[in-house]
């Protein structure tokens, strides 16, 4: 019992110490700020006084008389009658006050000429910059506190145990403290580091090294509308710091998060500058993109490619509902909070240069056939089984034709030409990012200012990304109660992109088309500059466009100017009550210039200009402006050192205007790149606006840091919905229990800390995903040409209005466990979650008899995502100059559609052209299955003999009673695929499809290893997914051989023939009458991969050498080499990369149901870079 009490006492002590630290921090700032800047005149006044044993209030009066100051205090706080003695001669006011107040434990603040007095509650007194005690006693201990690298650690609190005596280390980490006796113990503590205790003994000079706490409960975590200490966090929040964020040379913060956060999956979908596909805890919407809400310094925004990762201090990912629900209606897909860097008060100017440059290229290329191999392929395409199609053989593939020259003056015949289109299309791209930042602060102001330039060329021709960005963040104390601050970003980005990427029409994406490339065609006639193109089906087997000519002549560029600025005013109404008013502007002006230039081509028959000599000019503009105002009251107080109460109330509004202008036209003069003088000009212009009004309240209560309760509610009103559905409530609550602080738990020495928590809450889908007026039915206009006069003269509406349309809402339950084990060397976080999204919005197909052409958005579905996440970290105790740590995360999400009330009960997606037999869907979404499961036929085997085929047909006839029935098809022959008759009706048709796979992985994981030895450091990041499938559209392009197309050498060589029977690859048959290449398991491959996502090796020049060589001008000099995607382990070999997102350029309906289909997307690149970090 006694022991228990002692423990409790100890715990309380620890808690107090923490509070002392915070207090101390505040005090230092207060004292410091009072001293120098604002109070220069007041505090520089010189006084001489000799007062012995007088009442304190009399001394104050005397001082008021002798100087211009005025004291303000509460006699309930300050004991004004205590006797004091003060003797000063020609001392400044500052020195005088110091001498007077210190022994009395009084602190002061200056406001104008007023000096406001307050009591220093408890704890120790700060040692000021200039030592007040000149005389050093025998019991004085001096020393130095260093960090894990041996550098002096400033600001560490040093306390004599069980006393209130203490100090903090100076800028070099040095301290001096008086100890009562040699057996006294000194306690060293610092935020983010493990606390150490050292017996003072007789040593007068101690050096103490602090190691970072692997998990510090006092770490500050940014949550919506405030911060919490990690101790009091009761929801699932993952934090990524600036170092981790900047290890990868990527353009966007989302890409930098890949593999870092359990439950967060990042899939790149296109070339640099295009946002990756980010999902937090699974797919939460059927119809809409699942991008999380990004909040930068409190401002919900978009265009993340405009942000420089170097400017980001930390990223917090709010995963569960209790964390995210504070963002209510927009938080269903999770919230990612970005906090940009700020200056530190009272710190010297810090200049840092952070720069890298490198190259990137494809890590894998496919194996297309060369001219000789293609000729052999053509021979087999029109012989044997295909002999009957010999007349259809494209004319080029005869020795006579192949011996002709492709253009006048050519030195190589078609047969001698061997163009590797793939090599021409891929490139080695340059990448660089440079950021210079200056930060610092005085007693009252702080600032962080940076400029950055980034360029990433990408690995394919015709793409690239550039960014120029500037940032200024600053804060200014205006008196003791007001703080003004502002954050401003200005960025210019320019993205060159391939407008055919994501296309799935006849042409497919450029990468899929590449599989049809014809190596016997040269790129260009160098004499005339005329491009060479295939002659069409009859000649070359395909009207293969000249991809290189397209890239050079079809140029699409997207230039965006982004300004994100906000200003805030903090008012300290009371010590514990603060008011913040924020106003901000988010402006993005996107200009899209596209030229589809007409060019000269020679298709072997004719020389002509493409597009009849007319260039198509596209000129689009999208101006987005959003105004935010937010008024916030925060109350934060600890009562009797046991009850911590934090409450937040916010009123917020965000109004967004979107202006879109689309202009196109035809230009006959190739020199003119604009629509000046163009013909066929069409212009479309829309203006949309939306408004979100929000009321937010949150209360957090912690008892002795052990029992924590957080509850919040947000009421959002959105203009997007119909009048009576505008408002909705998004409540959440969570509880936490720091079990590790319980006396009974201390006995289990394994655990240093243990916290259990649970949460439940409701979030909604950002309504602007639906466009701004989704419930209305609009009047459309067209023309009917009475008397042949085509004028716009009609009006009609095409869909039902839906006044009842409302938010998709997610109810999420989360339980979590945070633990530190083995003396804080091991940290562990486990989460289990269950999210049910209801009211899924889908386009409800109405019966044709209603006469509506468009389908209306209706809330008709329900979906569940549940799973768990595990994060485990180990930081080995530092051994001399070697330290290392490892952390890993793994997560699993299972998705299930619970309800789909559309009449047919199914939504199909992913139908393309060539790769899905022209319009057969690849995915199906139905209740009971995971979203967008791959849906197709089940490949049984390859027919080896005619007898097998005949037996199947005979069985089909006896089963159906139809004497002319076939199991599959009249044309089925040995070498064709036998698909399974799943419904057992005797033959294979549309009804014999089933779920054949899913893009959803079983697990996603990441592992990060860090180590340092002396001045070398190493960081290795692995990232991977396990399970799930890819439907390889590009594989169909390469290996289906339906027509004399396709370029995969291995698919050709492994095809079934009588001489070379295969059990996995069907025969090559002209027009594929058995439809061997239909959507089936044949094109499905395991999507698992493991990647060495990043490896980064650095060397930092030792500080003393630096100081000596540069006279202290340079404080840090680190050089590193890094490689991204150095190694990839995967079984997927039908495409360029296993990291397959969804079809880009689509965010509604079927487009969203295309995850995991390899359309031939821009593949992940392998890069090598060299970087430099210099601090001044």
């Amino acid at each position: 019992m006694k022991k228990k009490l002692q423990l409790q006492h100890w715990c309380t002590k620890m808690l107090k110490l923490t509070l002392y630290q915070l207090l101390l921090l505040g005090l230092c700032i207060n004292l410091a700020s009072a001293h120098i800047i604002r109070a220069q005149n007041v505090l520089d006044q010189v006084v001489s006084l000799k007062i012995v044993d007088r009442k304190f209030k009399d001394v104050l009066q005397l001082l008021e008389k002798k100087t211009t100051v005025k004291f303000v205090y509460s006699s309930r706080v300050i004991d004004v009658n205590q006797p004091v003695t003060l003797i000063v001669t020609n001392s400044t006011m500052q020195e005088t006050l110091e001498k007077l107040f210190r022994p009395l434990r009084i602190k002061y603040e200056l406001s104008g000429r007023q000096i406001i007095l307050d009591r220093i509650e408890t704890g120790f007194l700060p040692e000021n910059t200039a030592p007040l005690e000149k005389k050093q006693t025998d019991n004085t201990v001096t020393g130095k506190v260093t960090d894990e690298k041996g550098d002096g650690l400033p600001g560490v609190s040093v306390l004599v145990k069980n006393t209130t005596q203490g100090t903090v280390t100076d800028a070099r980490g040095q301290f001096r403290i008086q100890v009562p006796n040699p057996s006294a113990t000194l306690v060293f503590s610092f935020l983010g580091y493990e606390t150490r205790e050292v017996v003072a003994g007789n040593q007068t000079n101690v050096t103490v090294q602090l190691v970072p706490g692997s998990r510090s409960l006092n770490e500050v975590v940014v949550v919506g509308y405030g911060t919490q200490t990690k101790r009091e966090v009761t929801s699932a929040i993952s934090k990524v710091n600036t170092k981790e964020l900047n290890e990868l040379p990527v353009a966007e913060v989302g890409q930098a998060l890949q593999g870092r956060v359990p439950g967060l999956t990042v899939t790149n979908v296109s070339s640099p500058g295009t946002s990756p596909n980010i999902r937090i805890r699974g797919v939460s919407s059927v119809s809409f993109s699942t991008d999380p809400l990004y909040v930068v310094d409190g401002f919900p925004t978009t265009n993340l490619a405009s942000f420089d990762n170097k400017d980001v201090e930390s990223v917090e990912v709010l995963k569960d509902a209790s964390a995210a629900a504070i963002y209510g209606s927009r938080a269903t897909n999770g919230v990612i909070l970005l906090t940009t860097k700020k200056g530190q008060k009272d710190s010297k100017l810090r200049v840092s240069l952070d720069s890298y440059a490198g190259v990137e290229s494809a890590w894998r290329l496919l194996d297309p056939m060369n001219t000789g191999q293609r000729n052999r392929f053509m021979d087999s395409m029109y012989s044997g089984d295909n002999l009957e199609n010999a007349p259809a053989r494209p004319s080029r593939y005869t020795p006579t034709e192949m011996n002709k020259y492709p253009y006048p003056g050519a030195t190589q015949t078609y047969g001698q030409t061997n163009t590797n289109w793939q090599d021409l299309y891929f490139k080695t791209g340059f990448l660089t990012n440079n950021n210079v930042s200056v930060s610092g602060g005085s007693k009252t102001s702080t600032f962080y200012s940076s400029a950055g330039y980034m360029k990433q060329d990408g690995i394919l021709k015709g793409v690239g990304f550039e960014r120029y960005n500037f940032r200024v963040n600053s804060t200014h104390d205006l008196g003791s109660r007001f703080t003004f601050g502002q954050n401003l970003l200005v960025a210019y980005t320019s993205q060159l992109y391939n407008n055919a990427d994501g296309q799935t029409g006849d042409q497919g994406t450029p990468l899929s088309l590449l599989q049809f490339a014809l190596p016997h065609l040269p790129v260009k006639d160098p004499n005339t500059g005329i491009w060479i193109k295939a002659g069409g089906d009859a000649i070359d087997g395909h009207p293969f466009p000249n991809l290189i000519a397209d890239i050079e002549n079809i140029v699409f560029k997207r230039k965006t100017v982004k300004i994100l600025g906000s200003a805030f005013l903090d008012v300290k109404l009371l010590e514990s009550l603060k008011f913040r008013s924020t106003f901000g502007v988010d402006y993005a002006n996107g200009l899209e210039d596209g030229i589809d230039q007409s060019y000269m081509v020679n298709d072997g028959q004719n020389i002509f200009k493409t597009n009849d000599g007319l260039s198509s000019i596209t000129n689009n503009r999208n101006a987005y402006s959003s105004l935010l105002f937010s008024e916030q009251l925060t109350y934060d107080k600890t009562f009797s050192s046991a009850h911590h109460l934090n409450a937040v109330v916010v009123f917020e509004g965000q109004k967004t205007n979107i202006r879109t202008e689309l202009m196109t036209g035809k230009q006959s003069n190739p020199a003119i790149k604009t629509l000046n003088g163009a013909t066929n000009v069409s212009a479309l212009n829309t203006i949309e606006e939306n408004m979100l009004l929000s009321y937010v309240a949150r209360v957090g209560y912690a008892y002795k840091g052990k029992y924590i309760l957080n509850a919040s509610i947000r009421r959002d009103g959105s203009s997007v919905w119909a009048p009576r559905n505008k408002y909705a409530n998004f409540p959440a609550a969570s509880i936490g229990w720091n079990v590790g602080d319980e006396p009974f738990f201390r006995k289990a020495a394994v655990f240093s800390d243990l916290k259990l928590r649970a949460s439940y809450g409701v979030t909604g889908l950002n309504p602007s995903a639906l466009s701004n007026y989704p419930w209305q039915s609009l009047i459309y206009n067209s023309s009917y040409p009475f008397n042949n006069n085509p004028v716009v003269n009609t009006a009609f509406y095409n869909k039902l209005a839906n006044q009842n349309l409302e938010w998709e809402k997610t109810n999420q339950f989360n339980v979590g466990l945070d633990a530190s084990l083995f003396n804080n060397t091991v940290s562990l976080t486990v989460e289990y979650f269950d999210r049910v999204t209801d009211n899924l919005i889908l386009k409800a197909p109405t019966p044709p008899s209603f006469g509506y052409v468009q389908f209306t958005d209706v809330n008709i579905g329900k979906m569940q995502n549940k799973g768990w996440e595990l994060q485990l970290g180990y930081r080995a105790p530092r051994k001399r100059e070697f330290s290392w740590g490892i952390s890993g995360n793994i997560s699993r999400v299972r998705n299930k559609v619970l309800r789909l009330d559309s009449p047919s009960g199914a939504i199909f997606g992913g139908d393309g052209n060539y790769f899905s037999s022209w319009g057969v869907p690849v995915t199906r979404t139905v209740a009971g299955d995971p979203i967008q499961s791959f849906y197709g036929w089940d490949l049984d085997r390859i027919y080896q003999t005619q007898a097998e085929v005949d037996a199947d047909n005979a069985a089909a006839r006896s089963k159906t009673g139809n004497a002319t029935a076939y199991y599959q098809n009249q044309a089925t022959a040995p070498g064709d695929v036998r698909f399974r008759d799943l419904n057992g009706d005797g033959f294979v048709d549309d009804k014999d499809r089933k779920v054949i796979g899913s893009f959803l992985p079983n697990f996603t994981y990441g592992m990060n290893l860090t180590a340092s030895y002396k001045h070398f450091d190493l960081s290795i990041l692995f990232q991977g997914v396990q399970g799930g499938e890819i439907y390889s559209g590009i594989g169909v392009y390469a290996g289906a051989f339906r027509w004399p197309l396709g370029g995969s050498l291995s698919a050709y060589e492994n095809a079934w023939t009588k001489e070379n029977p295969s059990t996995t690859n069907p025969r090559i048959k002209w027009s594929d009458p058995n439809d061997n290449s239909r959507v089936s398991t044949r094109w499905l491959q395991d999507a698992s991969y493991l990647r060495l996502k990043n490896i980064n090796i650095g060397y930092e020049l030792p500080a003393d050498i630096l100081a000596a060589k540069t006279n202290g001008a340079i404080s840090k000099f680190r050089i590193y080499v890094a490689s991204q995607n150095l190694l990839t382990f995967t079984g997927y070999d039908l495409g360029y990369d296993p990291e397959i997102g969804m079809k880009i350029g689509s965010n509604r309906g079927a487009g969203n149901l295309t995850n995991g289909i390899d359309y031939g997307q821009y593949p992940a690149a392998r890069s090598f870079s060299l970087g430099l970090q210099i601090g001044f």
Partner: protein
Amino acid sequence: CENSLDKVNPNAVTAETYFKSSAELLKGVNGAYTTLNGSYLVGNAYIWLHDLRSDDFVGTTLADDRGEILRGTLGVNNAYTERVWKGFYIVIHRCNVVINNTVTSDPDDPSGQIKNRVVAEARFLRGLAYFELASLWGGVPLITKPVTDFGGFVPRSTQKAVYEAAIQDLKDAAATLPPTYEAADNGRATSGAANTLLGRAYMQMNDYANAKTVLEKVRSSGLYALSPTSTENFQEETEFNKESVFEYVFAPSPSAAEDEGDDYAQGQYRESTNGTRQYDMNTGNGIVLPSPGLKSEFEPGDPRKKTTIYEVGDQWAGGVMTQESWKKYTLSYKNPTPGNVTSAMNRRIRYAEVLLMLAECENETGTAQAAIARLNDIRNRAELKTAGLPTYPNTKFPCNTKDEILKAVMHEKRVELAGEQVRNRDLLRWRAAGKLALLGGEPIPYFQANKHELLPIPQSEIDRNTALGSGGVTAQNPGY
């Protein structure tokens, strides 16, 4: 106020706030005409659905869903039947909006004259749609008001009820519509067009007496006459001639018709305004050709054969034909580019058809001489007279009995109106009346009784209309 959540779309007006004046109703009915022209109907699918079910067509390589129609193997997912079904219901929806209008007074139309005419036009188009649906599918959902909620499903009515609804609409239309318009309104429904359609509907219901009455009104109006040559009816230069009773107007600078997709891209507020014309000229890839039966139906020297089809060796704007081909409606008479058949020319209800329907009605109601007179009205067209085609009766068509006269009507109608989406419905009527023996037996080789009389109800309607199958009419037609 600035921060209000009540945001109004500044880019378009909403359905609730529209159709509040006569001018807006006018635009509403124009929208129904547009659909008639679109690719679901006369711009494309409608034409295939009718003509491929007749015996005038063969198609060697017609492989897609059109081939299914031609060979009678069509199922519930046939895209062409679905498009036509959808198209007529879009017309019905747009007409319902106009017919059920809430306009009580309009200062710009104080007498209500425009409004009344517009509503009558909408009744005409709705009547047309229900007549088509009833004759092709039998009983269909009879929807007479715009559907305002997702559960507003309507079961199938009987075929008779749908015909009656169509007849009521057409009667109302005939009573209100003007007989003619100013030139600027060329293409609008007239009372003559309404009466002609009414005649078609009565005939399809075997009500020849009523059919005769309304068709006779068209004849006696004196507004219509046969043009000297039948070819004039298929050339752009002679559009809206005296023989034209109703036209679907296509814009003079044609471009390919766009499919009316199930969903429009945001911001795309226009539907197609141009339609393609019929059957591609056969340049070696011809997918539909005139059937041997049709070719032999023409009497020697009948100039209408040259109006209808090209034979090898015929001259066209691009030279000498090397393949046989359809000709009617194409621009090949003046455009030398094969395949370029889009045209401002369009299908029409022709006065010739009125006369031939009258001939059948007169015959059925026992006035044989009047029937023969109507047949001879056709034979007296200038070009036929010049060609020396005999009038009725003649040796081949003695016209002594009711059946012999009907046989003459059958012949005359087939050669006069080949490829004009008439034959299919005539065969349905004659089959129902047991008259196909006059044609030498069942002309459709695949015909299966209790199945091919009607088209299958599209699967999309069955899937989404949960009321289908209730109210005494099965969800699907027999045989599918």
